[in-house]
């Protein structure tokens, strides 16, 4: 699943790393980081959706999926997942 809020960087891989290196690390930049002051009249989720997601505002919603049971941040092809 592509999440446009995920940023990827490649850490340095040394020639003598004791463990198999993970080629990528990721972090999330939630959309609020680009908002200085929330404007009036933003679109809203339905109330049921808002209660579930934790925000009334699609523009503030940040999805996050567990990395549990996954190879850390990398697919079998070595590309970030």
């Amino acid at each position, binding site marked *: 699943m592509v999440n446009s809020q995920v940023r990827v960087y490649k850490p340095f891989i040394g020639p003598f790393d004791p463990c198999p290196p993970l080629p990528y690390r990721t972090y999330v930049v939630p959309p*609020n980081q680009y908002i200085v*002051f929330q404007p*009036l009249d933003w679109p809203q989720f339905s109330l049921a959706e808002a209660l579930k997601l*934790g*925000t009334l505002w699609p523009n503030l*919603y*940040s*999805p996050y999926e567990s990395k*549990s049971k996954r190879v850390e941040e990398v697919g079998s092809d070595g590309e970030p997942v």
Partner: protein
Amino acid sequence: MWIYEKKLQYPVRVSKCDPYMARLLLEQYGGADGELAAALRYLNQRYTIPDKVIGILNDIGTEEFAHLEMIATMVYKLTKDATPDQLKAAGLADHYVNHDKALFYQNAAGVPWTASYIQAKGDPLADLYEDIAAEEKARATYQWLIDMTDDVDLQDGLKFLREREIVHSTRFREAVEIIKDDRGKKRFF
């Protein structure tokens, strides 16, 4: 004063018997960036901040107590039926000898909560930037907690709490704008 509603802010469902996860969740209970620290930090800062942003600290500080209750419920559900042997296997033997199954304000490593985790500088910018940082740290902690469990129901509650930190961070950054902008000129939103 407060009015208490006898329900959780968001339903807490835990579907996997995983007492070890209870130990990890304590990070958000009595940890440096946990909900107790957040609630006490904001509610205490209210007294020495410009009037216009007291309400933000009041509302968010109150909500953090609702989050604390959710974390407590998760921990309680994960430990209430565990035998001493199961707690031992989950790395909770040291907790058990001191507290039985009682919850306690400590972090995932068993370090008790301390007021040194929080600050009140009396300077509105210093305090609000601390609050923003606290929200980002809490968001990150929720991410790592979500990564530590494959229980989708527990993940669901944690995802809700993570999203609330994002909303809080936004509100605190708006509070910074409000106090920066207070230069005698009127501004309408």
